[in-house]
C-alpha cells in the first residue's frame, strides 16, 4: 500500500493531550511515525499531504448509529451510512441492533460486520441486543455475539423495564466483561411524552416527560451495576439531575461510562417551539440549564462519549404533527462541525471536544484506533476548524434528510478522511 505523509498539520491527539504542530507518516494502513513539534522526514515515493492551517486528529468513533439495513433500507443502508460517516470525518461506526430482524444473534452481528467490511469505506461494527428481539424479556446470546465481534449490548431506544431482566443481563455479561448500555428513562413516567415537562411543553400542548424520569431509571440501573459488577454505559444522558447521579456513582468507584448525543449539546427545548419535527428527539430536548450542565460534563470529563445518535427517518415519518412524528435525527455527516460549535460558541477546548469522539469511545470499546500513535490504525481526519459550513440537508449523503442542523451555519469543515490509510473522503 502507498505510504502517505501528512505534514505541517496542527495535531490534535486527545489520548496524549497533545495539541501542537506536527506530522504523521502512514504505511500499510497504520500510523508508522508521529512527529510532534517538527515534521516527518518524507521518504522518496511517499504521497505528501500538506496540511498547513488544518487540524489532524484521530478519526471519529461514533458508537450510536442506526441504519435501516436490514429491514428498512429506504431509511438508510450500511453503504449510505458509511458514506455519510466518511464525509463527516467518522472512521468507525457502531450499528444499533434495532434493525429488522434485530441484531440479537451472532449471525446478525456477522452479517452487519461483513457487509460493512465489504463496502471498504469506514470500520463498521455491531452492537448486539441485550434481550431477544429487544423485547426486554429474555436474554439474548450475549456470549456468542461478543465472540462474533459485537462491541456492546443494548436494547437501543427501548428501556429494559424489568429490573429482574436487567439484573440477569448485567450479571451474565460480567462473565464476558461485556459492556451493557441502557437508556435511562422510566418507562411509565415517559409513556406518551414527546417533550420535556415544563412551561414550554404545556404552552405548546405537548405531552411532557418529566426530567426526573431519567434520574429515577439511572439510579435503578446504577444500583444494579453496583450489585452485579457489570461494565455499564449510560446511553444518552441528558439532564443535570442524572449527571449528579452519575458523578456519585463514579465517586463510589463504579465502572460506569456515559454518552451524550450531539443534539443535546447543541440544542435546547426552545428549538421545538415551532413544532419542527426535526427536533423531535428521544430523549426530548431539555432546558438550557441542562444543556449547559452537559457541556460542563464534557469539559470536565464526566462524559466519556459524544455520539451523533444518527437516526435516519424518511419524510413520511417526519412530515407529521410534532407528537405523531417519529423521534430521531441524522447526524453522522454534521457531527464534527456541530461538535466544533461547542468550541467556537461555548469555549470548550478542542481536545476536550475530540476526546469523547476518539480516545474515549476507543478505550470504552477496546479499539486500538482513536489515537495518533505509531502502530495505531491510520484512521484520521483532516479538518479546517474555522471554515464556515452551511448545512443543506438535501445535499447530505444519508438517504434520510431529517437533520436538525438543516439551514444552520456551522464552523468546521472536513477536508479529508482516511481509514486504514486509504482516503475515503
Amino acid at each position, binding site marked *: 500500500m502507498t505510504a502517505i505523509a501528512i505534514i505541517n498539520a496542527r495535531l490534535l491527539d486527545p489520548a496524549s493531550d497533545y495539541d501542537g504542530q506536527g506530522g504523521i507518516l502512514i504505511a500499510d494502513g497504520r500510523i508508522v511515525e508521529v512527529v510532534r513539534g517538527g515534521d516527518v522526514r518524507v521518504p522518496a515515493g511517499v504521497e505528501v499531504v500538506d496540511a498547513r492551517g488544518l487540524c489532524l486528529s484521530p478519526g471519529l468513533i461514533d458508537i450510536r448509529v442506526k441504519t435501516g439495513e436490514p429491514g428498512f433500507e429506504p431509511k438508510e443502508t450500511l453503504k449510505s451510512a458509511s458514506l455519510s460517516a466518511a464525509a463527516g470525518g467518522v472512521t468507525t461506526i457502531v450499528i444499533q441492533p434495532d434493525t429488522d430482524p434485530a441484531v440479537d444473534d451472532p449471525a446478525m452481528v456477522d452479517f452487519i460486520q461483513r457487509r460493512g467490511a465489504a463496502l471498504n469505506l469506514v470500520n463498521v461494527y455491531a452492537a448486539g441486543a441485550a434481550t431477544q428481539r429487544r423485547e426486554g424479556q429474555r436474554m439474548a446470546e450475549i456470549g456468542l455475539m461478543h465472540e462474533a465481534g459485537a462491541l456492546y449490548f443494548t436494547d437501543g431506544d427501548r428501556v429494559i423495564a424489568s429490573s429482574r431482566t436487567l439484573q440477569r443481563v448485567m450479571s451474565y455479561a460480567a462473565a464476558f466483561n461485556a459492556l451493557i448500555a441502557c437508556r435511562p428513562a422510566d418507562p411509565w413516567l415517559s409513556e406518551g411524552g414527546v417533550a420535556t415537562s415544563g*412551561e414550554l411543553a404545556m404552552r405548546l400542548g405537548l405531552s411532557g416527560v418529566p426530567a426526573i424520569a431519567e434520574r429515577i431509571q439511572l439510579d435503578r440501573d446504577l444500583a444494579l451495576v453496583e450489585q452485579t459488577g457489570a461494565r455499564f454505559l449510560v446511553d444518552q444522558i441528558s439532564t443535570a439531575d442524572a449527571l449528579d447521579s452519575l458523578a456519585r456513582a463514579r465517586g463510589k468507584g463504579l465502572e460506569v461510562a456515559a454518552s451524550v448525543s450531539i443534539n443535546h449539546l447543541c440544542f435546547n427545548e426552545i428549538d421545538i417551539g415551532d413544532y419542527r419535527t426535526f427536533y423531535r428527539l428521544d430523549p426530548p430536548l431539555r432546558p438550557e440549564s441542562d444543556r449547559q450542565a452537559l457541556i460542563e460534563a464534557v469539559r470536565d470529563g464526566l462524559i466519556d462519549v459524544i455520539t451523533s445518535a444518527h437516526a435516519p427517518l424518511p419524510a413520511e415519518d417526519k412530515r407529521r404533527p410534532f407528537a405523531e412524528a417519529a423521534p430521531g435525527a441524522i447526524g453522522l455527516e454534521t457531527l464534527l462541525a456541530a461538535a466544533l460549535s461547542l468550541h467556537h460558541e461555548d469555549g470548550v477546548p478542542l481536545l476536550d471536544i475530540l476526546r469523547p469522539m476518539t480516545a474515549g469511545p476507543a478505550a470504552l470499546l477496546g479499539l486500538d484506533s482513536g489515537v495518533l500513535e505509531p502502530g495505531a490504525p491510520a484512521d484520521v481526519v483532516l479538518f479546517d476548524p474555522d471554515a464556515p459550513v452551511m448545512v443543506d440537508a438535501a445535499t447530505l449523503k444519508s438517504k434520510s434528510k431529517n437533520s436538525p442542523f438543516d439551514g444552520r451555519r456551522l464552523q468546521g469543515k472536513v477536508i479529508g478522511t482516511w481509514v486504514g490509510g486509504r482516503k475515503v473522503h
Partner: protein
Amino acid sequence: MTQPHAVTDLISERLVPFPTPHFLSAGDLNPPAALALLDVADVFVDLNRLAASEGGKTLDLLSGRTVVNIFFENSTRTSSSFEIAAKRLGADVVTMPVQASSVAKGETLIDTAVTLNAMKPDILVVRHGASGAAALLSQKVGCAVVNAGDGRHEHPTQALLDLLSLRRAFGDVGGLTVAICGDITHSRVARSNVALLSMMGARVRLIGPPTLVPGDADRWGCEVFHDMREGLEGCDVVMMLRLQLERMEGALVPSTREYFRFWGLDREKLAWAKSGAKVMHPGPMNRGVEIDSDVADDLSVSLIQDQVEMGVAARMAVLASLWARSGAAR
C-alpha cells in the same frame, strides 16, 4: 334574501383585517383586534337572529369563496358551527369526510395539505388531534388557516366566542374574575381562554385536582387552586371543562363520583362564587360528572346556550376578517 343596507354598512364600518394571516392561537390577537372582532360579531348575532326568523343566508361577503372544513377529529358542534358561519357569509363550504379519505390509508398531513392546496380553497378550517397540526398545515398551504382545535394546544375560536358571550353578559370583561375548572392539563379550551381572557384584562384562576393542573400553571399568570371553595370565592364566572372520561377511573382521579364530589359544579359549590356569577361550559357536557344539570340548564346562571349561539357569530367574524386581510393582500 337581500341585505339591509344599514347592516352591510355597519359590517363594513366595523370589519377590520385580521392581524395575522392565519388564526392558530389566541396569541395571534391583540386587544384592539379582539375588540374589533367582537364588535363585528355583535352585528352577526343580530343578523343571525333575523335570519332565523326569516330564513335563508344573509350575506354575500364571501360569495364565490370556498371554505374547506377538515376535521380529523370528530366534532359535530364545532364543525356545524363553522359550516353555518361560512354559509351565512355566502361562502361555498366543503366539509371533508376525513375518516373515509386517503388520510385513513396512511397519507401524511402534509400530503393532505398539498392536495387541499391544489383545490385552491380560500379558508381552511382544521381540527386535528395533534398539537401544532394547524400550524404545520398553515406552512404548507396558500390560504388562511383557522385552528378549530389542535390536540391539547389551542382552540382559539372557542376562546373568542367565550369572550363574546362574557362581553354580552357583563358589558366588559376587564376586571372580571374567571375560574376555569377541571382538566386544565389536557384542555386546549383552557389554554386559549387563559391567553385571551388575561390579554383582555380578566383575572383568571385555575381550579382542579393536582393531577389535572400543570405543575407550573402559576407561571401562566393565573392563580391556581385545588379546592373549589377557595378558588370560587369572589368569582364572576365559573367556566367548567369537559372531562375525558377515559382518563378518569383510577388514572388521574379515583372515580367519577369522587370527582363530582370535589370538583363537579352543583348549586352548593356555585354558591361559593360571587352572587350573580355565570356558568360556562364549552360542551359537550358530562352531566353529573363535571356539572350538575340543575346548574347547566338554569338560564338565569348558565351561558352555555349563549356560547353555542355566539359560536356562529364569532366564527363569522373570524372568517370575514381573515378574508378581509387576504382579500386586501391581493
